[in-house]
């Protein structure tokens, strides 16, 4: 029976496994939440699938149910934009339309949405299911966990955006890059751990990532009738994994050391569209060649950087404490359109570009746990995540700042009808410090260049003098806020 439960649970996990990165901050289960994911050598739970899978061997066979409620209060407040910086309607009469740049902005009054602040205050809740089972094999433990947004059966809410002036065409807002505005999708992990020696454990787990390939072939018989077209789609979904490897070495009873490696990952979407129009041909003097226009839409959602984490723990009687340092390789960051943050449509010069590379970061995570009585524990956790995002004084608007996390947790073991249970509770508070950004006008793309002339008379356009931009981040913004989270779980040991 136990095996069936485990196998059924694994099937469920695989069938739903996509992932999001908020649990990297918060922890995948309540036990990880209690210490802000800082359990690197002690205190295993199914959440250790992410924290350090080598800790899984310390687990007993179990089934757990987790509840998490996040209450964010984050805001991006835009500074007032000088009205002269709006793009006037006469851009249509200018030679801007005949330039070789692919991107052309719209007159400000014609933008679909007015420029506005971003407020993140919608509570989000998740229900999680975790399982650990060793198949009665000594020194081995397998485990899996999945977190589902309670908006289920709306399984996923994904939205992409641009981080520069192009977003004006769409939402005309700014977005938090790393923290606070996560995709509302299911998240899950699966892993195994083995005690190679009595004092040495190895673990391996995987976040299952997916790559979606879509190909849309569209035929438009009449380009002037834009609400009629014929379309066929091919879509394929392939899975990949984000490997997480961990090790714990316990040289002394009072000292343990551990290390974890997590590869970079993201959910990839390779969109490809092929457009065929009636009576539209290649410019060939000798042959009639129908022109097929191909467009690519590469997306990379929920990027997580490659991470190297090392830490140690000390145990003194009923108190344990741990400290971990995590190195994150952010320079490889890819935004939601699968580009590096410094890759723009109208390229910057190399020297300017360097200013906008993301930086690698060292994050610090620690906790302390105090056991009192035989069944109760009390935990405190703290973590500091410096921002990888350089000053956004140029065209890009990656909104982020240093984050301080604090947590509190309590654990209570009890028995009912001779069955063992554990009840965990956790509360977390994350501060994203306020970051005020003033744009450097010299680094902002003048979307209506000063040397624009009228198509009709080749006359200079005085309204184009100076900076005109629809970049929603211009002339600046301030961002920050807090996220409060609570969680609870019940573990049944079988």
């Amino acid at each position, binding site marked *: 029976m136990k095996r069936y439960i485990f196998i059924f649970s694994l099937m469920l996990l695989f069938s739903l496994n996509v992932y999001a990165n908020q649990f990297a901050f918060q922890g995948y289960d309540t036990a990880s939440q209690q210490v802000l994911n800082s359990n690197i050598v002690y205190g295993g739970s199914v959440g250790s699938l992410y924290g350090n899978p080598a800790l899984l061997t310390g687990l007993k066979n179990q089934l757990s149910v987790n509840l998490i409620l996040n209450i964010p209060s984050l805001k991006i407040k835009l500074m007032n934009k*000088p*009205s*002269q*910086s709006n793009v*006037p*309607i*006469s851009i*249509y*009469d200018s*030679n801007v*339309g*005949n330039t070789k740049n692919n991107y052309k902005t719209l007159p400000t*009054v*014609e933008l679909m949405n007015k420029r506005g602040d971003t407020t993140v205050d919608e509570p989000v809740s998740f229900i999680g299911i975790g399982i650990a089972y060793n198949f009665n094999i000594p020194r081995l433990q397998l485990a899996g966990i999945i977190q589902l947004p309670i908006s289920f059966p709306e399984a996923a809410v994904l939205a992409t955006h641009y981080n520069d002036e192009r977003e004006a065409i769409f939402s005309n807002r700014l977005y938090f890059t790393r923290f606070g505005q996560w995709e509302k999708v299911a998240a899950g992990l699966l892993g195994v751990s083995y005690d190679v020696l009595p004092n040495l454990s190895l673990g391996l787990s995987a976040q299952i990532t997916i790559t979606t390939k879509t190909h849309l072939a569209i035929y438009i018989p*009449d*380009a*002037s*009738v*834009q609400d009629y077209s014929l379309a066929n789609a091919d879509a394929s979904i392939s899975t990949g994994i984000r490997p997480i490897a961990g090790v714990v070495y316990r040289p002394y009873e009072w000292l343990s050391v551990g290390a974890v490696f997590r590869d970079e990952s993201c959910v990839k979407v390779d969109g490809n569209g092929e457009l065929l*129009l*009636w*009576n*539209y*041909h*290649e*410019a060939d*003097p000798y042959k009639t060649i129908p*022109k097929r226009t191909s467009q690519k839409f590469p997306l990379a959602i929920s990027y997580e950087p490659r991470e190297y984490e090392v830490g140690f723990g000390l145990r003194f009687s009923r108190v344990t404490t741990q400290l971990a340092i995590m190195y994150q390789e952010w320079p490889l960051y890819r935004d939601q359109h699968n580009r590096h943050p410094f890759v723009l449509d109208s390229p910057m010069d190399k020297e300017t570009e360097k200013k906008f590379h993301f930086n690698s970061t060292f994050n610090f995570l620690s906790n302390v746990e105090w056991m009192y009585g035989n069944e109760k524990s009390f935990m405190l956790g703290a973590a500091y995540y410096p921002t990888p995002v350089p*000053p*956004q*004084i140029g065209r890009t608007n990656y909104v982020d*700042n*240093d984050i*301080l996390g604090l947590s509190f947790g309590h654990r209570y073991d009890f028995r009912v009808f001779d069955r063992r249970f554990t009840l965990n509770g956790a509360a977390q508070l994350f*501060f994203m*410090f*306020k*970051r*005020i*950004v*003033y*744009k*450097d*006008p010299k680094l902002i793309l003048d979307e209506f260049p*000063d040397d624009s002339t009228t*198509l*009709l*008379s*080749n*006359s*200079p356009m*005085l*309204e184009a*003098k*100076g*900076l005109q931009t629809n970049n929603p981040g*211009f*002339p*600046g913004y301030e961002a*920050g806020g807090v996220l409060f989270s609570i969680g609870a779980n019940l573990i049944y040991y079988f």
Partner: protein
Amino acid sequence: MKSVKFIPVILLSIFILSCEKKEGVEVYEDALGYYECSYDMECGSGRYCDEEKHICTIDCVTSKDCVFKLSSPDEENTYDCSPCGRCIPKGTKDERCVVIKDIRCSADEDCYEAYKSTNYKCRKGYCAQVCQEDGDCKKSGRGFYCHQTEKLCYRRCFRDLDCYLHGWQYECILPEGVNKEENEKAKVGEEKYGECELRAGGVDYGRDTNPSKPSYKYTGIWGFMMNTAVRTLHVPLVNSQDTVSNNYILVKIVQKGEQLVFYEKWCSIDLRNFNDENPNWQDLARMITPEQYSDNIPINTHRVLVVPEMVPGAKMETDIMLEVRGAILENPATDPLPTHYNINDPRIIDQDRDGKPGMTTFMLGVLTGEVYNVQRWWVKYYINVVDARHWQGLLDHGSEQNIIDANPKSLIYDTECIKHPNQNHSYFRALKLCEPDQPCAASCADVLYHAKKVKGGWLEFEWLYDENKKPLENE
């Protein structure tokens, strides 16, 4: 003791506040390089000076652009676009928008008084704008350039054609020793520039002027609106495209014996797409014909061989005027036009002097880019005299056009042009601007003023010919 409890909270708050980051330097508007102004006239044609910000700006080009002023896009548009680009309620006048041209002066103070700006100096009896480069003079109007030594805007020319834009009363005075005929044919960059100056004796009506002949009453300076509608076949995406070429022309009509000769200076060409048969039709891409195109069309001439008495209802017709643009053909009427299959065809010329072959037009819309054409076309007027100052009538015309190159190349395609089957799309109207025995100051700007700014005016564009149309009073 109670206050001790708050210490951690206070410490935490201090910590959080101390972690606040400020990046960059506050942006000040005066550092953003906007062009400062005090009056609309400093901002050039179609622009106004924002009273609060003191920068040149524009809200609209046509009344359609004023939709942003409405509380809902579905509301009826109650706004017009003023000549200075302000959205104003329909039926009102933009009092701040004053278009002044050729202010007479005897000293710089007169110019300051007129423009309230030190940017104008008195030159040759007229106020001229101070400039540093040619671009500065575009505000003064079409055909103005910056004088290299005086640093004042002036009417530059290298041939008489350049001056007719300002009116038939101007002629091009070249530097001493420059041969007028040779200079006119000079390659781009090799021409010698002079200045358009008022011709002694005003407009040149020739030597055949004879007030006793019936043709005399027809002579003078006229503004023409001429619409020629064609159907272009094999256009990408849409296959067939109907277009009317809405042309404005400053015409000098002179007597030649018993006959009349029309000398036509082209002011502007506006290509308008239409589709009579499909009410849901959408304009996907349109051609813009730049001023440089019409500025380089040579003077076309028509003749009226039989001239009736000038009475309302009189009818006459011109001969056929045939013109080739963008190429020089040995036999203009019969030689095949150059094509894109041989872009090196020596018959192709850079007629509009923009460094590109043929004549350049711009495509806007779903297809965007530059298209280089050659064209052969002809036209004949059937004139109905409405009164002494107003004519109208249908046209007979034909056109053949080849795209010889384009940027991007995807805009190169082979088309075929036929006259639009609805004859009423091709017509003309003419409005007399000057009598032959009076001083004349009419220019292309006046023709375009009547065309674009006089509501219901004789030269206002209408899609179809209306033989019952009546001129406005006092027009």
